[in-house]
C-alpha cells in the first residue's frame, strides 16, 4: 500500500491527498499524452508532405470513351495541349479554381496558344441549383456567350447556389440580361429546359470516364482530380507541353472561341 501525503487546508475539506502511486500514474499519463500528440503531429506532417510530393496526376485508362467534341472550348484548336475540365458550376472547389487559378492559366497558356481548353458539365447531385446553371450556360452558348456566363456564374456562386435561392432560374435570367444576351431568346431557352439533354450527355460522359469529383482535369494523357493552385497546374501543363507531339487536337467542341479574359469584378445582377 502506498503511503499518502496530506497537505492540510487544500483540496478536500481536510487537504489534498496525493500518493507516490497517484503521482507516478499522472506521470505515466502525461507521457502517454505527449506520445499521442507527437505521433499525431508526425502523421499530420507526413500527410501534408506526402500530398505535395506525390504525383497528383494518374495516367488515363485507354479504354475510357474519348471526350471528342463534347463541351465548350476556348483557345487555339491547334494548340499542342488540350485540357478538359469536368466541372460543376455550384461546386465551391470548382469556384475556387475558376476564380483563383483559371484566370492566370487562361492568360499564360490559353490566350498564348499553348493550350486548348474544354469545359464539360458534371453537375453533382449534392448541389441543388447546378443543373439550372448548366442549362442556362448552355443557353448562353447559343448566343456565343458561354465563357462570359461561365465566369460570371463562378464569380457569383454564393448568390445563386442552393443555399442562396430556391429560384435559380430568376437569377440566371438576370445574369443573362446583365451580360447583354437577347433576353427573349435566353429566357425562353431557360424556361423550356431544352438544354437538358445536352447537359445529360455531358454528365453521362463524365460518368463513363469514371470522373468521381469536380473539378477533374484531363491534361494530355493524365487525369487530375481536385482544384489545384496555379503552380501545381502550370507544372502539369509544362510537362504536357514538353511531351506533346506536334499535331492538332481533334474536335472543336460545342463552341470554340478565342481567349476571353475574366471580368475584373465579382458582381451579381
Amino acid at each position, binding site marked *: 500500500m502506498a503511503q499518502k501525503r496530506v*497537505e492540510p487546508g*487544500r*483540496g*478536500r*475539506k*481536510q487537504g*489534498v*491527498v*496525493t500518493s507516490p502511486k*497517484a503521482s507516478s*500514474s*499522472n506521470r505515466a*499519463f502525461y507521457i*502517454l*499524452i505527449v506520445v*499521442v*500528440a507527437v505521433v*499525431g*503531429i508526425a*502523421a*499530420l506532417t507526413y*500527410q*501534408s508532405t506526402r*500530398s505535395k510530393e506525390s504525383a*497528383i496526376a494518374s495516367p488515363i485508362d485507354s479504354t475510357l470513351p474519348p471526350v471528342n467534341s463534347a463541351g465548350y472550348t476556348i483557345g487555339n484548336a491547334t494548340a499542342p495541349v488540350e485540357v478538359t475540365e469536368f466541372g*460543376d458550376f455550384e*461546386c*465551391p*472547389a*470548382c469556384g*475556387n479554381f475558376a476564380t483563383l487559378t483559371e484566370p492566370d492559366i487562361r492568360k499564360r497558356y490559353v490566350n498564348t496558344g499553348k493550350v486548348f481548353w474544354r469545359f464539360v458539365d458534371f453537375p*453533382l*447531385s*449534392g*448541389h441543388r441549383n447546378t443543373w439550372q446553371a448548366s442549362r442556362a450556360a448552355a443557353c448562353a452558348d447559343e448566343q456565343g456567350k458561354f465563357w462570359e456566363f461561365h465566369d460570371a456564374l463562378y464569380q457569383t456562386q*454564393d448568390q445563386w*447556389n442552393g*443555399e442562396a435561392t430556391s429560384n435559380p432560374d430568376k437569377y440566371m435570367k438576370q445574369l443573362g440580361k446583365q451580360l447583354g444576351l437577347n433576353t427573349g431568346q435566353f429566357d425562353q431557352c431557360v424556361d423550356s429546359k431544352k438544354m437538358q439533354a445536352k447537359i445529360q450527355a455531358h454528365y453521362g460522359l463524365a460518368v463513363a470516364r469514371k470522373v*468521381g*469529383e*469536380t*473539378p*477533374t482535369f484531363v491534361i494530355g494523357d493524365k487525369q487530375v*482530380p*481536385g*482544384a*489545384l*493552385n496555379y503552380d501545381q497546374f502550370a507544372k502539369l501543363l509544362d510537362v504536357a507541353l514538353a511531351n506533346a507531339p506536334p499535331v492538332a487536337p481533334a474536335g472543336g467542341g460545342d463552341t470554340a472561341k478565342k481567349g476571353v479574359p475574366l471580368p475584373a469584378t465579382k458582381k451579381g445582377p
Partner: protein
Amino acid sequence: MTLRKSIALISLLGLLLGAYLSLYKFGYIGTLSCSVGSCETVQTSRWSVLFGLPVATWGVGFYALMLGFAIVGLEPQHEDSTRLSLATLLLAGWGVAFTAWLNYLEGFVIHAWCEFCLGSAAFVVVLFVLAMVDYRRCRSVVAEGAAS
C-alpha cells in the same frame, strides 16, 4: 482522476482530428474538390467557414480548451474543484449544442454527411457525459466535506 484523464485523451484525439480537417481546408492536405455524399461536400460548403475561420479550426480551439481544463484538473490542488468541473461541463455542453447544429446542417441543409464530423460529434457527446459525471463527483466530494 480516470474521468479527467479520459477527457484529456479524447480531447487530444479530437484536437488532432480538427487539425487534420483544418489542414485540409487550408490546402495543406489533399486538394479541394467536390464529390457526392462525402466529406468534401461538407468541407466545401459555405457552412464549413464561420467568422472567417474553418469550423474545424474552431473545433481545434474547443478541444484545446477541453484538454487544458482536463490537464489542470489532474493537478492535486484542482482534483475536486467544482468550478473547474463546471467550466468543463459548460464548455462540453456548448460543444454538444454546436455539434447538434452542425449535424442539422449536414442532414437538412447540405444533404451530405462527413465521417470526420460524425467522429468529432461522437467525441463531443462522450466528453459531455464524462464532464457531467465528473461534475457530479466533485459536487458529492464537496457535500461530503461539508457534512464531515
